[in-house]
Protein backbone atom coordinates (compact mmCIF):
# COMPACT_ATOMS: atom_id res chain seq x y z
CA UNK A 1 0.00 0.00 0.00
CA UNK A 2 1.28 3.43 -0.94
CA UNK A 3 -0.29 6.09 1.25
CA UNK A 4 -0.18 9.82 0.62
CA UNK A 5 -1.41 12.18 3.31
CA UNK A 6 -2.13 15.79 2.54
CA UNK A 7 0.66 16.15 -0.03
CA UNK A 8 1.34 19.57 -1.47
CA UNK A 9 4.21 20.85 -3.53
CA UNK A 10 5.11 24.46 -4.09
CA UNK A 11 7.80 25.49 -6.52
CA UNK A 12 9.81 28.67 -5.91
CA UNK A 13 8.28 29.07 -2.46
CA UNK A 14 8.45 32.61 -1.13
CA UNK A 15 9.30 34.14 -4.50
CA UNK A 16 7.04 36.17 -6.77
CA UNK A 17 6.81 33.25 -9.21
CA UNK A 18 5.71 30.79 -6.51
CA UNK A 19 3.47 28.15 -7.91
CA UNK A 20 1.55 25.40 -6.20
CA UNK A 21 1.77 22.25 -8.30
CA UNK A 22 -0.06 19.99 -5.86
CA UNK A 23 -2.46 20.79 -3.08
CA UNK A 24 -3.78 18.53 -0.33
CA UNK A 25 -3.51 15.19 -2.09
CA UNK A 26 -4.59 12.31 0.13
CA UNK A 27 -4.64 8.91 -1.50
CA UNK A 28 -4.02 5.32 -0.83
CA UNK A 29 -2.90 3.09 -3.64
CA UNK A 30 -3.20 -0.62 -3.08
CA UNK A 31 -0.44 -2.79 -4.50
CA UNK A 32 -0.90 -5.04 -7.52
CA UNK A 33 -3.20 -2.67 -9.36
CA UNK A 34 -2.99 -0.45 -12.41
CA UNK A 35 -3.82 3.15 -11.62
CA UNK A 36 -3.97 5.96 -14.16
CA UNK A 37 -3.54 9.60 -13.21
CA UNK A 38 -5.40 11.52 -15.86
CA UNK A 39 -5.61 15.20 -16.52
CA UNK A 40 -4.41 17.88 -18.88
CA UNK A 41 -0.81 18.94 -18.93
CA UNK A 42 0.02 21.14 -15.96
CA UNK A 43 -2.50 19.35 -13.78
CA UNK A 44 0.21 17.94 -11.50
CA UNK A 45 0.39 14.33 -12.78
CA UNK A 46 4.12 14.38 -13.35
CA UNK A 47 4.88 16.10 -10.05
CA UNK A 48 2.74 13.59 -8.19
CA UNK A 49 4.42 10.64 -9.89
CA UNK A 50 7.88 12.02 -9.17
CA UNK A 51 7.00 12.51 -5.50
CA UNK A 52 5.65 8.96 -5.22
CA UNK A 53 8.78 7.67 -7.00
CA UNK A 54 11.15 9.40 -4.59
CA UNK A 55 12.57 11.82 -7.16
CA UNK A 56 11.28 14.91 -5.43
CA UNK A 57 10.11 15.68 -1.96
CA UNK A 58 6.72 17.19 -1.13
CA UNK A 59 6.67 20.62 0.47
CA UNK A 60 4.25 19.33 3.08
CA UNK A 61 2.55 16.03 3.78
CA UNK A 62 3.70 12.48 4.25
CA UNK A 63 4.19 9.42 2.09
CA UNK A 64 4.41 5.87 3.30
CA UNK A 65 5.35 2.93 1.16
CA UNK A 66 4.38 -0.20 3.05
CA UNK A 67 5.74 0.53 6.50
CA UNK A 68 8.46 2.86 5.30
CA UNK A 69 8.01 6.57 5.83
CA UNK A 70 9.93 8.14 2.95
CA UNK A 71 9.31 11.83 3.53
CA UNK A 72 12.36 12.40 5.67
CA UNK A 73 14.78 10.02 4.02
CA UNK A 74 18.22 11.23 3.02
CA UNK A 75 19.08 11.73 -0.64
CA UNK A 76 21.05 8.53 -0.62
CA UNK A 77 18.16 6.48 0.67
CA UNK A 78 15.81 8.07 -1.82
CA UNK A 79 18.23 6.97 -4.53
CA UNK A 80 18.22 3.47 -3.11
CA UNK A 81 14.43 3.58 -2.99
CA UNK A 82 14.19 4.62 -6.64
CA UNK A 83 16.65 1.95 -7.63
CA UNK A 84 15.23 -0.96 -5.67
CA UNK A 85 11.49 -0.36 -5.45
CA UNK A 86 10.58 1.56 -8.56
CA UNK A 87 10.98 1.15 -12.29
CA UNK A 88 10.59 4.26 -14.42
CA UNK A 89 9.46 4.59 -18.02
CA UNK A 90 9.84 8.15 -19.24
CA UNK A 91 7.89 9.93 -21.91
CA UNK A 92 11.00 10.35 -24.11
CA UNK A 93 12.40 6.93 -23.05
CA UNK A 94 15.68 8.61 -22.07
CA UNK A 95 17.95 5.80 -23.13
CA UNK A 96 21.66 6.59 -23.16
CA UNK A 97 22.92 6.95 -26.67
CA UNK A 98 26.18 5.48 -27.83
CA UNK A 99 26.02 2.35 -25.72
CA UNK A 100 24.25 -0.89 -26.51
CA UNK A 101 20.71 -1.89 -25.69
CA UNK A 102 22.02 -4.48 -23.24
CA UNK A 103 24.16 -1.95 -21.36
CA UNK A 104 21.22 0.43 -21.16
CA UNK A 105 19.12 -2.24 -19.54
CA UNK A 106 21.85 -3.15 -17.05
CA UNK A 107 22.65 0.43 -16.07
CA UNK A 108 20.27 0.92 -13.12
CA UNK A 109 21.78 -2.10 -11.36
CA UNK A 110 25.40 -0.87 -11.41
CA UNK A 111 25.38 0.91 -8.02
CA UNK A 112 24.22 -2.31 -6.33
CA UNK A 113 27.23 -4.16 -7.70
CA UNK A 114 25.62 -7.49 -8.71
CA UNK A 115 27.70 -10.29 -10.24
CA UNK A 116 28.20 -9.39 -13.87
CA UNK A 117 27.19 -12.78 -15.28
CA UNK A 118 23.91 -12.84 -13.35
CA UNK A 119 23.09 -9.29 -14.30
CA UNK A 120 23.68 -9.94 -17.96
CA UNK A 121 21.53 -13.05 -17.87
CA UNK A 122 18.73 -11.12 -16.19
CA UNK A 123 18.96 -8.32 -18.74
CA UNK A 124 18.86 -10.71 -21.69
CA UNK A 125 15.85 -12.48 -20.21
CA UNK A 126 14.02 -9.17 -19.81
CA UNK A 127 14.84 -8.21 -23.39
CA UNK A 128 13.48 -11.56 -24.47
CA UNK A 129 10.27 -10.96 -22.54
CA UNK A 130 9.72 -7.71 -24.46
CA UNK A 131 10.76 -9.45 -27.69
CA UNK A 132 13.76 -7.39 -28.54
CA UNK A 133 16.58 -9.80 -27.58
CA UNK A 134 17.90 -9.81 -31.19
CA UNK A 135 18.80 -6.10 -30.80
CA UNK A 136 20.69 -6.58 -27.54
CA UNK A 137 24.06 -5.66 -29.08
CA UNK A 138 22.90 -2.72 -31.19
CA UNK A 139 23.38 0.87 -30.14
CA UNK A 140 20.06 2.29 -29.01
CA UNK A 141 19.98 5.00 -31.65
CA UNK A 142 19.37 2.35 -34.31
CA UNK A 143 16.03 1.43 -32.74
CA UNK A 144 12.55 2.68 -33.63
CA UNK A 145 10.44 4.52 -31.07
CA UNK A 146 8.41 1.45 -30.17
CA UNK A 147 11.55 -0.63 -29.77
CA UNK A 148 13.16 2.05 -27.63
CA UNK A 149 10.18 2.00 -25.33
CA UNK A 150 10.46 -1.75 -24.94
CA UNK A 151 14.11 -1.31 -24.00
CA UNK A 152 12.96 1.28 -21.45
CA UNK A 153 10.49 -1.26 -20.04
CA UNK A 154 13.25 -3.86 -19.70
CA UNK A 155 15.45 -1.26 -18.00
CA UNK A 156 12.64 -0.37 -15.58
CA UNK A 157 12.36 -4.04 -14.57
CA UNK A 158 16.05 -4.84 -14.08
CA UNK A 159 16.09 -4.36 -10.30
CA UNK A 160 12.86 -6.33 -9.70
CA UNK A 161 10.83 -3.27 -8.64
CA UNK A 162 7.44 -3.58 -6.94
CA UNK A 163 6.09 -0.56 -8.73
CA UNK A 164 6.35 0.67 -12.31
CA UNK A 165 5.87 4.38 -12.93
CA UNK A 166 5.21 5.51 -16.49
CA UNK A 167 4.74 9.14 -17.48
CA UNK A 168 2.85 9.76 -20.72
CA UNK A 169 4.05 6.44 -22.11
CA UNK A 170 1.90 6.54 -25.24
CA UNK A 171 2.64 10.09 -26.29
CA UNK A 172 4.88 9.09 -29.19
CA UNK A 173 3.19 5.80 -30.12
CA UNK A 174 0.51 4.92 -32.66
CA UNK A 175 -2.60 3.04 -31.55
CA UNK A 176 -1.17 -0.44 -32.20
CA UNK A 177 2.05 0.22 -30.33
CA UNK A 178 0.14 1.87 -27.48
CA UNK A 179 -2.03 -1.21 -27.25
CA UNK A 180 1.04 -3.43 -27.17
CA UNK A 181 2.52 -1.32 -24.38
CA UNK A 182 -0.67 -1.52 -22.31
CA UNK A 183 -0.75 -5.30 -22.79
CA UNK A 184 2.74 -5.57 -21.38
CA UNK A 185 1.66 -3.43 -18.42
CA UNK A 186 -1.38 -5.61 -17.81
CA UNK A 187 0.91 -8.63 -17.86
CA UNK A 188 3.07 -7.00 -15.20
CA UNK A 189 0.04 -6.30 -13.01
CA UNK A 190 -0.97 -9.92 -13.37
CA UNK A 191 2.46 -10.95 -12.17
CA UNK A 192 1.87 -8.92 -9.01
CA UNK A 193 3.43 -5.55 -9.81
CA UNK A 194 1.85 -2.19 -9.18
CA UNK A 195 1.61 0.07 -12.22
CA UNK A 196 1.11 3.83 -12.00
CA UNK A 197 0.60 5.69 -15.28
CA UNK A 198 0.24 9.38 -15.84
CA UNK A 199 -1.56 10.06 -19.11
CA UNK A 200 -4.24 12.11 -20.79
CA UNK A 201 -4.52 9.67 -23.68
CA UNK A 202 -8.13 8.33 -23.76
CA UNK A 203 -6.77 5.03 -25.02
CA UNK A 204 -4.96 4.57 -21.74
CA UNK A 205 -7.72 5.91 -19.55
CA UNK A 206 -10.26 3.57 -21.10
CA UNK A 207 -7.97 0.55 -21.28
CA UNK A 208 -9.71 -2.52 -19.91
CA UNK A 209 -6.91 -3.50 -17.56
CA UNK A 210 -7.00 -0.22 -15.64
CA UNK A 211 -8.35 -0.60 -12.12
CA UNK A 212 -8.65 2.98 -11.15
CA UNK A 213 -8.56 6.38 -12.79
CA UNK A 214 -7.74 9.46 -10.77
CA UNK A 215 -8.39 12.76 -12.47
CA UNK A 216 -6.35 15.75 -11.54
CA UNK A 217 -6.82 19.41 -12.34
CA UNK A 218 -4.76 22.30 -11.03
CA UNK A 219 -3.03 20.12 -8.52
CA UNK A 220 -6.14 18.67 -6.94
CA UNK A 221 -8.01 15.40 -7.31
CA UNK A 222 -11.29 16.15 -9.07
CA UNK A 223 -12.65 12.67 -9.75
CA UNK A 224 -11.92 9.07 -8.91
CA UNK A 225 -13.30 6.15 -10.84
CA UNK A 226 -12.98 2.47 -10.03
CA UNK A 227 -13.67 -0.19 -12.60
CA UNK A 228 -16.63 -1.90 -11.00
CA UNK A 229 -16.14 -5.12 -12.90
CA UNK A 230 -12.63 -5.61 -11.51
CA UNK A 231 -11.96 -6.59 -7.92
CA UNK A 232 -10.18 -3.88 -6.07
CA UNK A 233 -8.11 -4.35 -2.95
Amino acid at each position, binding site marked *: MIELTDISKTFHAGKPNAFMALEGITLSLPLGRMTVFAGPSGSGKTTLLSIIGGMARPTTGRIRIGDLEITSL*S*ERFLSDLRRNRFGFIFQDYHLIRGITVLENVMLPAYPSGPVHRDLKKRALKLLESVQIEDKARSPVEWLSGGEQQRVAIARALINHPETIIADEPTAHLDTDLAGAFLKIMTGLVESGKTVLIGSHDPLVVEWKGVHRVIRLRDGRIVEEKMEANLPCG
Partner: protein
Amino acid sequence: MWMNPAVLALIVGGILACIAAGYGARLGIAILPNWNLTSGSERQLAMERKTYLASALLGWVMMFEFLSLFMFVHTADHLHDLFVGAMCAAGTLTVNAYGYPALILKILNAVLCGLWVLINHADTRAPDYPLIRVKYTAVLIIAALSVMEIGLQLGYWMHLDPNVITSCCGTLFSTDRQTLAGDLAHLPPVGTMMVFFASLVGVVGMALWFYRTGRGAGVLAVMSGWFFILALISILSFISVYIYQLPTHHCPFCLLQREYGYIGYPLYVSLFIGGIAGMGIGLLNRFKEIDSLTEVIPQMQHRLCLTVLIGFALFGTIAVYPILFSDFRLIGY
Protein backbone atom coordinates in the same frame (compact mmCIF):
# COMPACT_ATOMS: atom_id res chain seq x y z
CA MET B 1 64.12 28.02 0.38
CA TRP B 2 60.64 27.82 -1.05
CA MET B 3 61.89 28.00 -4.60
CA ASN B 4 61.97 24.27 -5.10
CA PRO B 5 59.35 22.38 -7.11
CA ALA B 6 58.42 19.97 -4.34
CA VAL B 7 58.21 22.70 -1.73
CA LEU B 8 56.04 24.76 -4.06
CA ALA B 9 53.83 21.74 -4.64
CA LEU B 10 53.47 21.09 -0.92
CA ILE B 11 52.65 24.72 -0.21
CA VAL B 12 50.08 24.97 -3.00
CA GLY B 13 48.55 21.63 -2.00
CA GLY B 14 48.45 22.68 1.64
CA ILE B 15 46.65 25.90 0.75
CA LEU B 16 44.15 23.95 -1.37
CA ALA B 17 43.60 21.60 1.58
CA CYS B 18 42.86 24.63 3.76
CA ILE B 19 40.39 25.90 1.18
CA ALA B 20 38.71 22.50 1.00
CA ALA B 21 38.51 22.05 4.77
CA GLY B 22 37.53 25.70 5.17
CA TYR B 23 34.69 25.27 2.72
CA GLY B 24 33.57 22.20 4.66
CA ALA B 25 33.69 24.23 7.86
CA ARG B 26 31.67 27.05 6.33
CA LEU B 27 29.12 24.55 5.19
CA GLY B 28 29.03 23.12 8.70
CA ILE B 29 28.36 26.56 10.16
CA ALA B 30 25.55 27.05 7.65
CA ILE B 31 24.08 23.59 8.22
CA LEU B 32 24.19 23.09 11.97
CA PRO B 33 21.58 25.66 13.05
CA ASN B 34 19.24 25.15 10.07
CA TRP B 35 19.26 21.41 9.57
CA ASN B 36 15.72 19.97 9.41
CA LEU B 37 15.37 16.73 7.54
CA THR B 38 11.58 16.65 7.80
CA SER B 39 11.34 19.80 5.73
CA GLY B 40 11.09 19.44 1.98
CA SER B 41 12.13 23.02 1.48
CA GLU B 42 14.52 23.90 -1.27
CA ARG B 43 17.01 25.18 1.28
CA GLN B 44 17.10 21.87 3.07
CA LEU B 45 17.51 20.06 -0.25
CA ALA B 46 20.37 22.34 -1.24
CA MET B 47 22.07 21.77 2.13
CA GLU B 48 21.72 18.02 1.76
CA ARG B 49 23.30 18.15 -1.65
CA LYS B 50 26.13 20.24 -0.33
CA THR B 51 26.94 17.55 2.20
CA TYR B 52 28.06 15.45 -0.76
CA LEU B 53 30.45 18.19 -1.79
CA ALA B 54 31.77 18.41 1.75
CA SER B 55 32.32 14.64 1.82
CA ALA B 56 34.13 14.74 -1.49
CA LEU B 57 36.30 17.69 -0.43
CA LEU B 58 37.20 16.09 2.88
CA GLY B 59 37.93 12.84 1.05
CA TRP B 60 40.36 14.80 -1.11
CA VAL B 61 41.89 16.40 1.97
CA MET B 62 42.40 12.97 3.50
CA MET B 63 44.12 11.65 0.38
CA PHE B 64 46.24 14.77 0.26
CA GLU B 65 47.22 14.53 3.93
CA PHE B 66 48.37 10.94 3.54
CA LEU B 67 50.27 11.43 0.31
CA SER B 68 51.79 14.72 1.41
CA LEU B 69 52.99 13.19 4.65
CA PHE B 70 55.35 11.01 2.65
CA MET B 71 56.10 13.80 0.19
CA PHE B 72 57.02 16.10 3.07
CA VAL B 73 59.53 13.58 4.40
CA HIS B 74 60.91 12.93 0.91
CA THR B 75 61.38 16.64 0.27
CA ALA B 76 63.12 17.13 3.58
CA ASP B 77 65.33 14.21 2.68
CA HIS B 78 66.09 15.60 -0.75
CA LEU B 79 67.16 18.91 0.76
CA HIS B 80 69.54 17.32 3.27
CA ASP B 81 72.67 18.07 1.25
CA LEU B 82 71.98 21.78 1.62
CA PHE B 83 72.74 21.56 5.30
CA VAL B 84 76.03 20.82 6.93
CA GLY B 85 75.81 17.63 8.89
CA ALA B 86 72.30 16.70 7.78
CA MET B 87 72.40 13.26 6.23
CA CYS B 88 68.69 12.67 5.73
CA ALA B 89 65.26 14.09 6.55
CA ALA B 90 65.93 13.77 10.28
CA GLY B 91 68.67 16.38 10.03
CA THR B 92 66.82 18.69 7.66
CA LEU B 93 63.82 18.78 9.98
CA THR B 94 65.92 20.10 12.85
CA VAL B 95 67.19 23.07 10.85
CA ASN B 96 64.56 25.22 12.48
CA ALA B 97 61.99 24.86 15.21
CA TYR B 98 59.09 24.41 12.79
CA GLY B 99 60.19 21.12 11.20
CA TYR B 100 59.13 18.50 13.72
CA PRO B 101 55.97 20.31 14.89
CA ALA B 102 54.89 20.49 11.23
CA LEU B 103 55.51 16.78 10.79
CA ILE B 104 53.67 15.83 13.98
CA LEU B 105 50.72 18.03 13.05
CA LYS B 106 50.65 16.39 9.62
CA ILE B 107 50.48 12.95 11.22
CA LEU B 108 47.72 14.11 13.56
CA ASN B 109 45.78 15.61 10.66
CA ALA B 110 46.12 12.47 8.58
CA VAL B 111 44.80 10.36 11.47
CA LEU B 112 41.92 12.78 12.11
CA CYS B 113 40.96 12.85 8.44
CA GLY B 114 40.99 9.06 8.41
CA LEU B 115 38.65 8.96 11.42
CA TRP B 116 36.43 11.60 9.83
CA VAL B 117 36.02 9.50 6.72
CA LEU B 118 34.92 6.58 8.91
CA ILE B 119 32.31 8.72 10.70
CA ASN B 120 31.14 10.09 7.38
CA HIS B 121 30.76 6.58 6.03
CA ALA B 122 28.64 5.55 9.01
CA ASP B 123 26.55 8.68 8.63
CA THR B 124 25.79 8.09 4.97
CA ARG B 125 24.76 4.51 5.65
CA ALA B 126 21.88 5.67 7.85
CA PRO B 127 18.73 7.18 6.32
CA ASP B 128 18.52 10.20 8.61
CA TYR B 129 22.02 11.75 8.84
CA PRO B 130 22.40 10.91 12.56
CA LEU B 131 26.00 12.11 12.84
CA ILE B 132 25.71 15.34 10.91
CA ARG B 133 26.47 17.49 13.96
CA VAL B 134 29.44 15.41 15.08
CA LYS B 135 30.74 15.41 11.52
CA TYR B 136 30.67 19.12 10.95
CA THR B 137 32.01 19.94 14.37
CA ALA B 138 34.95 17.71 13.48
CA VAL B 139 35.36 19.51 10.16
CA LEU B 140 35.77 22.75 12.07
CA ILE B 141 38.64 21.18 14.02
CA ILE B 142 40.24 19.71 10.89
CA ALA B 143 40.00 23.07 9.14
CA ALA B 144 41.66 24.81 12.07
CA LEU B 145 44.43 22.22 12.17
CA SER B 146 44.95 22.46 8.40
CA VAL B 147 45.49 26.19 8.73
CA MET B 148 47.93 25.60 11.58
CA GLU B 149 49.67 22.97 9.52
CA ILE B 150 50.21 25.17 6.48
CA GLY B 151 51.33 27.92 8.86
CA LEU B 152 53.98 25.68 10.39
CA GLN B 153 55.01 24.42 6.97
CA LEU B 154 55.38 27.95 5.63
CA GLY B 155 57.39 28.80 8.74
CA TYR B 156 59.56 25.78 8.14
CA TRP B 157 60.21 26.37 4.44
CA MET B 158 60.69 30.11 4.76
CA HIS B 159 63.15 29.77 7.61
CA LEU B 160 65.11 27.05 5.91
CA ASP B 161 68.45 28.76 5.65
CA PRO B 162 71.03 26.53 3.97
CA ASN B 163 73.91 27.81 6.13
CA VAL B 164 72.79 26.58 9.49
CA ILE B 165 74.77 23.68 10.85
CA THR B 166 72.43 20.87 11.75
CA SER B 167 72.81 17.49 13.27
CA CYS B 168 72.57 14.50 10.99
CA CYS B 169 70.36 11.57 11.81
CA GLY B 170 73.39 9.84 13.28
CA THR B 171 73.73 12.51 15.94
CA LEU B 172 70.11 13.53 16.34
CA PHE B 173 69.11 10.02 17.28
CA SER B 174 72.45 9.05 18.67
CA THR B 175 72.17 7.85 22.21
CA ASP B 176 74.63 10.26 23.78
CA ARG B 177 72.55 13.36 23.16
CA GLN B 178 69.88 14.64 25.54
CA THR B 179 66.92 15.21 23.26
CA LEU B 180 63.49 13.65 23.38
CA ALA B 181 64.22 11.72 20.18
CA GLY B 182 67.53 10.66 21.67
CA ASP B 183 65.80 9.56 24.85
CA LEU B 184 63.34 7.52 22.83
CA ALA B 185 66.15 5.94 20.86
CA HIS B 186 67.97 5.35 24.11
CA LEU B 187 65.16 3.24 25.52
CA PRO B 188 66.66 -0.11 26.45
CA PRO B 189 66.09 -2.21 23.33
CA VAL B 190 65.32 -5.39 25.21
CA GLY B 191 62.72 -3.72 27.40
CA THR B 192 61.19 -1.83 24.47
CA MET B 193 61.10 -5.00 22.44
CA MET B 194 59.35 -6.85 25.23
CA VAL B 195 56.75 -4.11 25.69
CA PHE B 196 56.33 -3.92 21.92
CA PHE B 197 55.74 -7.63 21.47
CA ALA B 198 53.48 -7.82 24.52
CA SER B 199 51.43 -4.92 23.10
CA LEU B 200 51.36 -6.43 19.62
CA VAL B 201 50.11 -9.75 20.98
CA GLY B 202 47.69 -7.88 23.23
CA VAL B 203 46.18 -5.71 20.51
CA VAL B 204 45.91 -8.59 18.03
CA GLY B 205 44.40 -10.81 20.71
CA MET B 206 41.93 -8.09 21.66
CA ALA B 207 41.04 -7.59 17.99
CA LEU B 208 40.42 -11.33 17.59
CA TRP B 209 38.23 -11.31 20.68
CA PHE B 210 36.31 -8.29 19.44
CA TYR B 211 35.96 -9.93 16.04
CA ARG B 212 34.29 -12.95 17.62
CA THR B 213 32.24 -11.36 20.38
CA GLY B 214 31.78 -7.74 19.32
CA ARG B 215 32.66 -6.63 22.84
CA GLY B 216 35.46 -4.48 24.18
CA ALA B 217 35.45 -1.82 21.45
CA GLY B 218 36.67 0.87 23.82
CA VAL B 219 39.55 -1.25 25.08
CA LEU B 220 40.53 -2.19 21.54
CA ALA B 221 40.54 1.47 20.51
CA VAL B 222 42.73 2.51 23.43
CA MET B 223 45.08 -0.39 22.76
CA SER B 224 45.26 0.48 19.05
CA GLY B 225 46.05 4.08 19.85
CA TRP B 226 48.70 3.00 22.35
CA PHE B 227 50.18 0.52 19.89
CA PHE B 228 50.25 3.17 17.14
CA ILE B 229 52.39 5.46 19.31
CA LEU B 230 54.44 2.62 20.77
CA ALA B 231 55.16 1.33 17.26
CA LEU B 232 56.51 4.73 16.21
CA ILE B 233 58.76 4.71 19.28
CA SER B 234 59.82 1.15 18.57
CA ILE B 235 60.78 2.07 15.02
CA LEU B 236 63.13 4.63 16.57
CA SER B 237 64.33 2.31 19.27
CA PHE B 238 65.03 -1.00 17.55
CA ILE B 239 63.01 -1.77 14.39
CA SER B 240 64.97 0.67 12.24
CA VAL B 241 68.24 -0.56 13.75
CA TYR B 242 67.49 -4.12 12.67
CA ILE B 243 66.51 -3.03 9.19
CA TYR B 244 69.65 -0.91 8.75
CA GLN B 245 71.75 -3.47 10.63
CA LEU B 246 73.64 -0.61 12.21
CA PRO B 247 73.47 -0.29 15.99
CA THR B 248 73.76 3.51 15.94
CA HIS B 249 71.32 4.25 13.15
CA HIS B 250 67.94 5.03 14.67
CA CYS B 251 66.42 7.03 11.82
CA PRO B 252 62.70 6.63 11.08
CA PHE B 253 62.95 8.32 7.67
CA CYS B 254 65.72 6.48 5.81
CA LEU B 255 63.35 3.49 5.76
CA LEU B 256 61.50 5.28 2.98
CA GLN B 257 64.58 5.39 0.76
CA ARG B 258 65.62 3.16 -2.10
CA GLU B 259 68.64 1.85 -0.18
CA TYR B 260 66.29 -0.06 2.07
CA GLY B 261 63.90 -1.18 -0.64
CA TYR B 262 61.25 1.42 0.31
CA ILE B 263 60.35 -0.88 3.19
CA GLY B 264 59.10 2.13 5.15
CA TYR B 265 56.07 2.48 2.89
CA PRO B 266 54.38 -0.84 3.71
CA LEU B 267 55.57 -0.44 7.29
CA TYR B 268 54.02 2.97 7.89
CA VAL B 269 50.97 2.43 5.68
CA SER B 270 50.02 -0.76 7.50
CA LEU B 271 50.57 0.95 10.85
CA PHE B 272 48.39 3.93 9.90
CA ILE B 273 45.63 1.74 8.50
CA GLY B 274 45.64 -0.54 11.53
CA GLY B 275 45.82 2.34 13.99
CA ILE B 276 43.06 4.40 12.38
CA ALA B 277 40.79 1.37 12.00
CA GLY B 278 41.36 0.41 15.64
CA MET B 279 40.68 3.89 16.96
CA GLY B 280 37.70 4.11 14.60
CA ILE B 281 36.12 1.04 16.22
CA GLY B 282 36.04 2.79 19.58
CA LEU B 283 34.92 6.09 18.11
CA LEU B 284 32.02 4.47 16.28
CA ASN B 285 31.06 2.58 19.41
CA ARG B 286 29.96 5.85 20.98
CA PHE B 287 27.21 6.15 18.36
CA LYS B 288 25.98 2.56 18.52
CA GLU B 289 22.91 3.53 20.55
CA ILE B 290 21.52 5.78 17.83
CA ASP B 291 18.47 4.00 16.37
CA SER B 292 19.37 4.26 12.75
CA LEU B 293 22.92 3.05 13.37
CA THR B 294 22.29 -0.03 15.48
CA GLU B 295 22.86 -2.29 12.50
CA VAL B 296 25.33 -0.22 10.53
CA ILE B 297 27.92 0.25 13.26
CA PRO B 298 28.49 -3.37 14.28
CA GLN B 299 28.88 -4.20 10.58
CA MET B 300 31.44 -1.48 10.11
CA GLN B 301 33.23 -2.40 13.32
CA HIS B 302 33.43 -5.98 12.14
CA ARG B 303 35.13 -4.93 8.92
CA LEU B 304 37.36 -2.42 10.67
CA CYS B 305 38.39 -5.13 13.09
CA LEU B 306 39.49 -7.27 10.15
CA THR B 307 41.43 -4.25 8.90
CA VAL B 308 43.10 -3.86 12.29
CA LEU B 309 44.13 -7.50 12.25
CA ILE B 310 45.53 -7.34 8.73
CA GLY B 311 47.24 -3.97 9.29
CA PHE B 312 48.93 -4.81 12.56
CA ALA B 313 49.80 -8.35 11.46
CA LEU B 314 51.50 -6.94 8.36
CA PHE B 315 53.27 -4.31 10.43
CA GLY B 316 54.37 -6.94 12.92
CA THR B 317 55.66 -9.20 10.17
CA ILE B 318 57.73 -6.46 8.54
CA ALA B 319 59.08 -5.37 11.92
CA VAL B 320 59.88 -8.84 13.15
CA TYR B 321 61.29 -10.31 9.94
CA PRO B 322 64.75 -8.72 10.13
CA ILE B 323 64.97 -9.49 13.85
CA LEU B 324 64.41 -13.19 13.21
CA PHE B 325 66.13 -13.66 9.89
CA SER B 326 69.19 -11.44 9.85
CA ASP B 327 72.56 -12.19 11.36
CA PHE B 328 72.56 -8.82 13.04
CA ARG B 329 72.17 -8.90 16.80
CA LEU B 330 71.39 -5.66 18.61
CA ILE B 331 71.55 -7.24 22.02
CA GLY B 332 75.13 -7.01 23.20
CA TYR B 333 75.93 -3.66 21.66
